[in-house]
């Protein structure tokens, strides 16, 4: 077997390291993500997995994958760049919130209290990465025709998705009516509810190229720390002074 091939799936390693971090003092962990652009094939699986995991409505997306065409014909390539929340060390979105509805938690993740957010959207304009969305109360199934039965029609479709509780921040958010998170700012939170039960974020497990690496930056032996030391590493909009906790490998 070629020594360049990994002996185990990186997901298995990340999972093991996640358990290790949680078994120590979980508050001492510092969650960081590294996205290897050379491995991203632009399949958008992470974006869709995230939408599905967090029961996101139309118009709300936490991890879109941006595409860029580079070069000139015939030497043309496409480049893909997934853009989750950068979980900035110095997040402009937090400082502007007038009601302290958003803050950085102990593990470095920027979180939102949906019951406190007044929906002013100041944080949306302040985020240099466009990483926040406002929930404008969209429904995927609005235009779906009604039909009898358990698998056809609007009711059945809604049951499988929109009428299911969103699990964010460890709370079962009620089916979409007019209450939160409708009217709130929403963003990627590294799947807090999954981390709490020892699961990796949904975008990490769904990445078929294993391009998304996640783990505890305070663990010197972790895969994520290894990637952070790569000479290919860079961060988006460094000049803004936000110090993102999402790194990219060029």
């Amino acid at each position, binding site marked *: 077997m070629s020594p360049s091939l990994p002996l185990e799936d990186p997901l298995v390693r990340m999972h093991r390291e996640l358990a290790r971090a949680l078994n120590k003092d979980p508050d001492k962990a510092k969650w960081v993500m590294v996205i290897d652009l050379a491995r991203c094939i632009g399949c958008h699986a992470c974006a869709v997995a995230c939408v599905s995991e967090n029961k996101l409505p139309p118009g709300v997306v936490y991890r879109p994958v941006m595409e860029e065409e580079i070069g000139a014909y015939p030497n043309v390539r496409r480049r893909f760049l997934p853009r989750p929340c950068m979980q900035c060390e110095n997040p402009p979105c937090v400082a*502007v919130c007038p009601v302290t509805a958003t803050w950085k938690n102990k593990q470095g993740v920027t979180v939102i209290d949906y019951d406190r957010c007044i929906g002013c959207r100041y944080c949306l304009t302040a985020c240099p990465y466009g990483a926040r969305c406002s929930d404008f109360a969209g429904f995927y199934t609005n235009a779906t025709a009604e039909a009898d039965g358990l698998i056809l029609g609007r009711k059945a479709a809604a049951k499988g998705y929109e009428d299911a509780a969103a699990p964010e921040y460890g709370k079962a958010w009620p089916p979409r009516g007019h209450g939160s998170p409708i009217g709130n700012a929403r963003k990627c939170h590294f799947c807090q509810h999954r981390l709490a039960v020892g699961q990796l974020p949904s975008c990490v497990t769904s990445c078929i190229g294993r391009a998304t690496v996640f783990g505890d930056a305070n663990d010197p032996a972790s895969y994520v720390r290894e990637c952070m030391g790569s000479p290919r590493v860079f961060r988006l909009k460094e000049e803004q002074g936000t110090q993102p906790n999402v790194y990219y490998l060029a």
Partner: protein
Amino acid sequence: MAYTKRSNPLLIVAGLGLLAGLYGVFEALVYRTEPTGLGSYVPWGLGVALYLLFLGLSAGGLLVNCLVYILGKKELDRIAGVVTYATLLTEVCAGIAIALDLGHWERMYRFIVSPSLTSPMFWMLIFFNAVLLVYAIKALAIVTNNQPLARLCSLVSIPVSLCFYATNGYFFSIITSHPAWSGAFTTIWFVLAALLSGGGLVTALAWFSQDESEVTLRLGRTLAVLLACFLIFEWLYFSAGYRGGRPDIAAALTAMLTGQAAWSFWLLHIGLGLFLPLALLLVGRNSPAAVAWAGLCIVAGFLAYRYAFVVAPQSVPMLPGLDKAWQDPRLTLTYTPTLGEWLLTLWVFSLGLAGFVVGPRLFPRLFSRPAWLQPLAR
């Protein structure tokens, strides 16, 4: 001006506007931001522009108090009552506009129970209420003929109002992710813009509501200076923006000049709001009516300026290609206000108009010269 028969058509217009606009209010109260044309990449639109317009109109009080108490133009104190009323009314309109723009207006109590001192929006609210309070006390002082208290309120209102208008500029100036908003320049420009639009309103009121020709002409001269300063600032803004070499700033400026709402920028803001009043102020500088019309033109053109300032910079993506990454009408860089948003705007305007028309009936003492100036009456 007492309430006269010529007020009736205006009252009917305001009444019709209030009636038609009710639908916009209903939508905003019940469905909040859902029926708006806003999205996550253009999260601020007509509601924020409307708020900025009315908060600017409330700066007439600051302008008159500065002229009376700092520059010694005592004759302007004759319109202290109507100016105080205008400040209060326009602040109320601004407050309604911005409250109804929130995704959860019912949670506004959060400003008190979980405030954030690092947020300019929090300080904006503090100074907003401070201005409201000072002017409410001043109105009471004028009505009860308490000159020392009115004078004290006027003096206190100067720094408080300056903080308020500056905070509104600061609110935008710290948003470095939209470089066409950011920078200390915005803070100063906001104060100037507020003085100009508020000055336009009180100048119109001094003539149309008070028949004060001397005061109107004095305010007209001040308006001309403010207008000239504003033009210089606007030129600096575009010139420095284009020559600074930042493509994102240049793109935002181009969106203002040639984008979707460019017609309103050129026709309403530049034409109606700046050049027409400038011409009126120059040609008709000795005619109170011409000066008052110039003031009205400034007021009318200012919504277009606020709209362009708010919306155009948001049409530049935070990251190149972000708007193409996930297709949804809420994730685009364009914004078109919906009928509900226009109706809400109409309602707020109509409320302001109705307030000015019925003001003399409800508060006759505010619409006449303060009692302590009565002996000076011509």
